[in-house]
């Protein structure tokens, strides 16, 4: 089974590798990003593709190659990242995201936009959660007349009217 398939089917229970081998993957990811950016700049007259789409395609190709052939250190490194504890993922990526945002925004701009950001981020996410959760819930409880999610749907459709 491929590394991704293992992750989806059983989590990281069966994996007994060396987590420190993951460092190579970060370097490879940075190299891939730089190469994509440079290649896109060179071929910008012939290849009209957004940078993020190209990175996605190259990353999928990279994962396919590393998963089906044994590239030793590279495959080990990729497996270490695939089997990472999801909580570690959050703590690895979140500080970098916050730093990146804080580094480029000015505090005054943020204060000016704070009400909109907070409206979108707190009640907006709550509404989104209700609607996303209501879809599977109404699908499973269609026979009940007054399920909570049906009430949510009714309220939302009233709001839309």
């Amino acid at each position, binding site marked *: 089974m491929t590394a991704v398939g293992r992750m989806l089917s059983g989590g990281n229970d069966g994996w007994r590798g060396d987590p420190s081998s993951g460092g190579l993957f970060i370097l490879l990811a940075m190299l891939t990003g730089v190469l994509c950016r440079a290649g896109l700049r060179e071929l910008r007259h012939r290849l009209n593709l*957004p*940078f*993020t789409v190209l990175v*996605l395609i190259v990353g999928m190709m990279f994962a396919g190659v590393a998963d089906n052939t044994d590239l030793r250190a590279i495959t080990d490194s990729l497996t270490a990242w695939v089997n990472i504890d999801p909580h570690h993922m959050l703590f690895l990526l*979140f500080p970098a*995201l*916050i730093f990146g*945002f804080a580094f480029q*925004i000015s505090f005054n*701009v*943020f204060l000016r*936009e*704070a009400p*909109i*950001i*907070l409206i*979108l*981020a*707190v009640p*907006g*996410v*709550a509404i*989104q*959660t*209700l*609607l*996303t*959760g*209501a*879809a*599977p*819930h109404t*699908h*499973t*409880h*269609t026979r009940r007349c007054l*399920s*909570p*999610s049906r009430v949510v749907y009714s309220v939302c459709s009233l709001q839309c009217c």
Partner: protein
Amino acid sequence: MYVFPYSWSFTTAMAFGAMLSATDPVSVVAVLREMNVPPRLSHIVEGESLFNDGTAMVLFTVFKVRAPG
């Protein structure tokens, strides 16, 4: 009606919704910057993407604690 054949309870379905509502538009912000949209829009999208992680995490934890099984 065979889209979600799991018979989830309300709290389980809401925990699922909280999981999916924490979007992280790193690539969206990159595209916005490439397309030269007004900086105000990209600031709002970026700031929202930072704060919705916190809200979604709180919601998910609340529904996960209350979910049966």
